[in-house]
């Protein structure tokens, strides 16, 4: 899919073909000896070591099904590489592993997410969310008390909090039974006001204290009504009261002061009849809802056609222009005996060699309307390269062509050299002119090699997020929300999912991504079918 997969030049293929007998055999003979065996054992040991380590991790998390799959895969890999017979498998296994790791798993994950409400506020499991709501429901009541606190153990070993009221300075010992007043003289404090000792109680410190963190945070000391004192840190305790009550049996939250009921709405939230929603929610399946939103939500639907047409035009024009320019330059520089030929060729590859994001940012500066080199230094004009909707489209295409043409230049240069000289000679003998020769002989032969790459490049540019995002950010803005004048489907999806509504919406983003995948797949399939026709012609 990516344009940086430069195919090996056909010329190289020819020379490699003559060497078929020698190089691989030599390689095989080298790697059949003790050296090869040592390398093999080394690699397999690493694979096994990683696998065994992973198995222990999986076991400690009680993930038994992945554990069995991993164990089976590891045994299978060992078997394949220790068996003399399984030669084809030896070559297939690494490829398959990479295919699964980098293609299949992300695709499965994307599809899975598309059917959930995974988004801001819907990250946790339901149990965690209920706990989170309960925690966030604890508020400080008016004139609630705050205390200086020290965790301690009573003579009978019971966990208590020694408390010093910040107002009035009375002292207590609090446990899950409630508060017990102790004389102020029994509690000693230091210069910072921290409690350093309490008569009859052993204060907890260091490892012993941290070891029982869960008991300390869970300890509630009832005071009056639903109010209770809780530890907040290591030396503070606060009187809090819950504003919501969780009814475990009915699985609802009830607001304490007015009895409002919040019910599970089936989409990962507790919601009141009035529409008020409790946070956090949780992650859950929502069926086809994300796909439904694409159809029903005007925000998604309205700009879709406009953005789709532009995306198609953008990808098509970039490929067409890059190919034309690349081919033109390749033919120009294909002359035998040309001076400085190598230098020209190297120079032309530069845009391709510079990291794309860097070129894009440089171009952004060059194209600045008032201060950029293009307007000020070269054109002495005032073209609104990035600020006018149509000019911005031109800019995006021009810069993308700049980044893409060296690829087609390289590819065409290689393909041209693979066209047998006899064919052009024969055409010349038949009296064909240069243009006719190019149209009837060179181009068709060239397209056999290059057309599939053009389709790949089209698919790549169809989803070329970087070029759009780094050059114009999708702008300039139109009057419609979200989709700017140069936004392509993928950058528009990104804005839809991460710069609208309530923060990030991974579920919706995945659903749109799946739709885009089908669009690209359809276009590519049609394209490949047509190239096959091309091959038949010749």
């Amino acid at each position: 899919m990516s344009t940086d997969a430069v195919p090996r030049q056909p010329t190289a293929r020819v020379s490699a073909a003559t060497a078929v007998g020698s190089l691989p055999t030599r390689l095989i003979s080298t790697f059949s000896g003790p050296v090869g065996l040592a390398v093999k054992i080394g690699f397999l040991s690493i694979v096994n070591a990683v696998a065994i380590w992973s198995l222990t991790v999986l076991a400690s998390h009680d993930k038994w099904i992945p554990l069995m799959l991993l164990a089976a895969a590891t045994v299978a890999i060992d078997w394949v590489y220790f068996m003399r017979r399984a030669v084809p498998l030896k070559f297939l296994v690494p490829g398959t592993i990479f295919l699964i790791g980098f293609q299949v798993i992300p695709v499965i994950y994307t599809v899975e997410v598309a059917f959930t409400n995974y988004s801001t506020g819907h990250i946790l499991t339901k149990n965690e969310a209920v706990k989170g709501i309960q925690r966030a429901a604890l508020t400080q009541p008016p004139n609630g008390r705050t205390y200086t606190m020290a965790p301690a153990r009573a003579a009978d070993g019971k966990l208590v909090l020694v408390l010093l009221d910040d107002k009035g300075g009375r002292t207590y010992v609090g446990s899950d039974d409630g508060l017990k007043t102790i004389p102020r003289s029994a509690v000693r404090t230091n210069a910072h006001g921290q409690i350093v000792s309490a008569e009859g109680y052993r204060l907890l410190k260091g490892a012993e204290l941290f070891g029982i963190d869960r008991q300390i945070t869970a300890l509630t000391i009832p005071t009056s009504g639903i109010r209770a004192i809780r530890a907040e840190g290591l030396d503070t305790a606060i009187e809090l009261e819950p504003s919501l009550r969780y009814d475990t049996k009915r699985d609802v939250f009830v607001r304490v002061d007015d009895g409002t009921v919040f019910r599970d709405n089936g989409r990962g939230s507790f919601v009141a009849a009035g529409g008020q929603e409790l946070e956090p929610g949780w992650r859950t399946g929502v069926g086809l809802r994300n796909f439904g939103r694409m159809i029903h939500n005007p925000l998604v639907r309205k700009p879709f056609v406009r953005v789709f047409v532009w995306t198609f035009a953008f990808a098509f024009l970039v490929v067409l222009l890059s190919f034309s320019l690349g081919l033109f330059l390749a033919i120009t520089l294909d002359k035998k005996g040309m001076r400085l030929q190598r230098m020209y060729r190297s120079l032309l590859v530069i845009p391709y060699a510079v990291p794309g994001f860097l070129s894009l940012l440089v171009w952004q500066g060059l194209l600045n309307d008032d201060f950029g080199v293009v307007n000020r230094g070269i054109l002495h004009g005032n073209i609104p390269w990035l600020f006018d909707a149509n000019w911005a489209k031109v800019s995006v295409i021009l810069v993308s062509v700049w980044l893409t043409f060296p690829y087609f230049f390289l590819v065409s240069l290689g393909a041209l050299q693979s066209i047998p000289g006899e064919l052009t000679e024969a055409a010349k003998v038949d009296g064909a002119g240069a243009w006719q020769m190019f149209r009837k002989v060179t181009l068709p032969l060239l397209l056999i090699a290059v057309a599939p790459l053009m389709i790949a490049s089209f698919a790549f540019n169809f989803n070329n997020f970087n070029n759009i995002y780094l050059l114009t950010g999708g702008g300039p803005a139109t009057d419609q929300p979200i989709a700017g004048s140069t936004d392509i489907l993928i950058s528009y999806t990104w804005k839809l999912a991460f710069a609208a509504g309530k923060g990030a919406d991974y579920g919706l983003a995945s659903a749109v991504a799946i739709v885009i995948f089908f669009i690209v797949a359809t276009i590519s399939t049609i394209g490949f079918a047509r190239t096959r026709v091309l091959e038949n012609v010749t």
Partner: protein
Amino acid sequence: MLNKHMARLGTVLLAALAVALLLLAPTAPAAHREASATTIRIWTDQDRKAAVDRVTSAWGSSKGVSVEVVVKPFDKIRDDLKTVQAGQAPDVIVAAHDWTGQLAADGLVLPLVPKASVLKQVPKYARDAFSYGTGAAHLYGMPVTLENVGLFVNTRLAKVPKTWAQLEKAALAFKRKSANNLAIAVQQGAGGDAYHMYPFFSGLCGYVFGKTKGGSLNPSNIGLSSKKFLKNASLIDKWNREGLITSKVDSSTAQNAFLKGQAAFWITGPWNIDTVRKAGIKFQIIQVPKIKCRAAPFLGVNGFMVTKFAGTHGIESAAKDLVVSYMAGANAQQDLAAANGRYPANLTAGKRITDTALRQIGRASTGGVPMPNIPQMGSVWDELGGAWVKSTKGAGATPARSAFATAASNIRKKIGSG
């Protein structure tokens, strides 16, 4: 012959390796689990790593807790917290206040309930920046550093203006001196920059979100189309005609202009103080003078949050002690703020700042508005920035009134879609 021999040897080696690993492996996760009970893991960015190390290890050794500081790119701290496995998850994070709404709605950070004596150490607006709740608001982070933009004035090129009229006059006079000069250098570019433009927005009495009776931000009250602001918006059209501000200026253009003496006024923040000093420019930083309302900048507050994983790891009390009791203190904040070249939130630490420029930028924050921390803010940035771009792009600009009204209606649609 040899091959067979080697193969057998290899099998033996593999078996040995496997057995050794099997013996080792079960102890490894167990040891990890045990250690996590007395180790606090903190995620921080590279800039603050050394200071966080220093400050937290001082706390750790006094409490008997070991501190593990993990470095992440700043925005990754927020994003990775959503997907991290509990085993690798942090107990405490360095955070920007505008993450508060998202992380609290996700349920990933814990509410903090400090005592009054702790609270009064940091100003109320800095605490508000970290407060969030659809009902009652809770504090989710301890503010540590403040940042905001101010008006940098090159004092060799212009007098420090006392009123908006003086600023406007001086800036336009400077611009007329040369075709290369900018009146007020403030970065926008094609993508827009609502953050740097905020002093002008608030100066015309604009606001992003109104407040509910309970004091929390109300995402259905959009201040881009408030009557008062739209009435004042015609001034933007005037500025556009005069060339006082233009959206063609992006960050590098603005910076170059100020450093080369082609702009006497630059709206930027503390992150550029060193750059300006190195260029040998004599400068003073002030708040943009009052236009129709106070031209207050957006405030960014950085601080520390306790994650829900602190509870999972059984280290919650210690994590809260670190974040609430310790990080609020003047000494810790002074060290952290100095490391980052920012103004500390702690009031006592603020008084100890001796760096002139930092003090000036601190003063320029007066009346500043914390960037809204509710997740709906994601729908605002592009639209607000875009409205400025459209209305200040020179010839062919959209009248500001209509640009901002459109932006407001788009924001409403976007928020409604969630």
